[in-house]
């Protein structure tokens, strides 16, 4: 890659990770990671197990505190901000091991996703009618609309826990989308899905991108990665070993070595 490309990428980077370090005890999980996610892209973060992908996502969304480096989102520094503030700035996410509000209904899960886009506080809640009722109605409508979008409107009233695995993942996505994020972090969205569900997911991810949401995606399913990604960053042992378009990555010898000599011929 030429340096001119880098400058261009940096100029339009929605998320810029520079020199990111995260240690657990003596283990360095993420080591001086650089990564640029361009606005409007589907950006995949791949690497073997234990390469620090999820840790990177967790540091970006402030579930872990970074031990060094910077994370700039739309020009502002994220490192040091609490998780909820980052969500407020427009970074939403899903989790590798699904984290739904299990006892609540599907639509309530998505309504909670609207939290940062709604205002009514404690005092507002006590006042009957007016603005509160309107906002409630809008929140609910918006939630139903999103459930339609992910294809789950028919289970809106069911408890989130009662859904099959694949549907739970889609509820998580709908919940994340409810905050109208500019950047959506997806941690292995296809895990546990059957091929049919994965196909639906691909369609869904594409349409999310069409809505103008930037995606940063961790995924093991290389078919999925290669078919939806605009750019790919490859991690190994917490370090960035390659970044580029899917085709470049598939040819990169370092990447192939990292995957134990396997080939990424699926692309």
């Amino acid at each position, binding site marked *: 890659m030429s340096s001119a490309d880098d400058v261009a990428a940096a100029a339009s980077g929605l998320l810029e990770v520079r020199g990111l370090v995260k240690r657990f005890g003596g283990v360095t999980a993420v080591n001086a990671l650089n990564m640029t996610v361009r606005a409007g892209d589907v950006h995949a973060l791949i690497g073997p197990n234990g390469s620090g992908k999820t840790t990177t996502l967790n540091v970006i*969304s*402030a*579930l872990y505190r970074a031990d060094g480096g910077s994370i700039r989102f739309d020009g502002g520094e994220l490192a040091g901000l*609490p*998780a*909820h503030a980052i*969500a*407020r700035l427009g970074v*939403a*996410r899903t*989790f590798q091991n699904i*984290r*739904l*509000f*299990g*006892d*609540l*209904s599907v*639509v*309530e899960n998505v*309504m*909670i*996703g609207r*939290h*940062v886009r*709604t*205002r*009514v*506080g*404690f005092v*507002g*809640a*006590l006042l*009957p009618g007016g603005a*509160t*009722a309107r*906002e*409630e*109605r809008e*929140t609910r409508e918006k939630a139903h609309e999103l459930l339609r979008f992910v294809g*789950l409107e*028919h*289970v*809106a*009233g*069911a*408890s989130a826990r*009662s*859904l*099959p695995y*694949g*549907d739970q993942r889609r509820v998580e996505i709908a*919940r*994340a989308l409810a*905050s109208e994020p500019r950047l959506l972090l997806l941690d292995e969205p296809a895990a546990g899905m*059957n091929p049919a*569900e994965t196909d639906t997911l691909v369609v869904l991810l594409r349409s999310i991108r069409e809505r103008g949401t930037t995606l940063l995606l961790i995924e093991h399913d290389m078919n999925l990665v290669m078919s939806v990604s605009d750019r790919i960053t490859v991690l190994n042992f917490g370090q960035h070993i390659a970044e580029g378009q899917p085709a470049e990555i598939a040819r990169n010898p370092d990447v192939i070595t990292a995957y134990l000599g396997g080939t990424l011929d699926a692309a």
Partner: protein
Amino acid sequence: MTSNPNVTLSGPNVTLSSSKGGASRPVAIAVLIAVLALLPAFVHSDYLLSLVDTAGIYAIVVMGLGILLGFAGQLSLAQAAFLGIGAYTSGWLTTNLGWPAWPSMGAAMMMSALVGLAVGYPCLRLSGHYLALATIGFGIITQLVLINWKSVTNGSDGMGNIPPPQIGSFVFDSYGRYYYIVLVAVLACAYVAWRIKTTRVGRALEAIRENEIAARATGIDATRYKIIAFVLAGAYAGLAGSLLAHLTKFISPDSYSFDQSVVFLVMLIVGGSASISGAILGAVLLWFLPEVLRPLKTSYIMVYGAAVVAMVVFMPRGLVGLLDTLRTRFTRRPDAA
């Protein structure tokens, strides 16, 4: 795998119980309130009325605990201490400064809410059993302060001559009259809890209860909302404490013990922790249960203990869950096919 259509059974209106409960719900509530308002016209026994008054006051404490534990998932075993703080604030203001009862009640609520804030803030770092123990510690310390800070609390002797509230020359000095104050307070507290539960704040609290990490990642300032829950639980208990003080007119530190906090917790869990009607039902049932068992003489507390175990084992979602199940069983049959 496609999703199972059966899961839609409960439907959004049932599980959300918010705006559109159908026309029957407001009517049912109005009828219930009307019946409750007429109660003293039919019940003349001071004994029963005093039980009802106290049950209502306990329902307020338990609703407060419901907001903290049922909604937000934070276990506190210090509700009795907040009850005490409310009672003593009211008692001190009326007997020492000569305040009338009404503003004292407000002050009692504020005071307990403030202490709730002070306790909630450092306790936020703790969860589960750790939080439980920190609140037990706070409760025990509060009771010790009530016993030993004699210049303000009058120590173990307690504080007497707390005046009843009055409007003009109408004094709320009988159980029947006081009933209306309790009724209004219970309804107001239930309304507040219900509004919280069914709007954004309540959803945020429930999100924290269900999964705090996901809640934070969704943009919910968990710290802030947990403090709100602590403050509300404090305010509810403070109001209840004050109501109790003006009803009995005498307070002493032994009423605000750890054991009493445990009783409130049991009331909530038996009623159904995430539900407002559950909190009220639990409080009323477990306050009346020992009274009903009185004819068993000394063995009744034993039976009460066994009943608590049985209720937890056989009614997993509390009384409210049991009622829900029964209702579903009787109303769903026609369209079950």
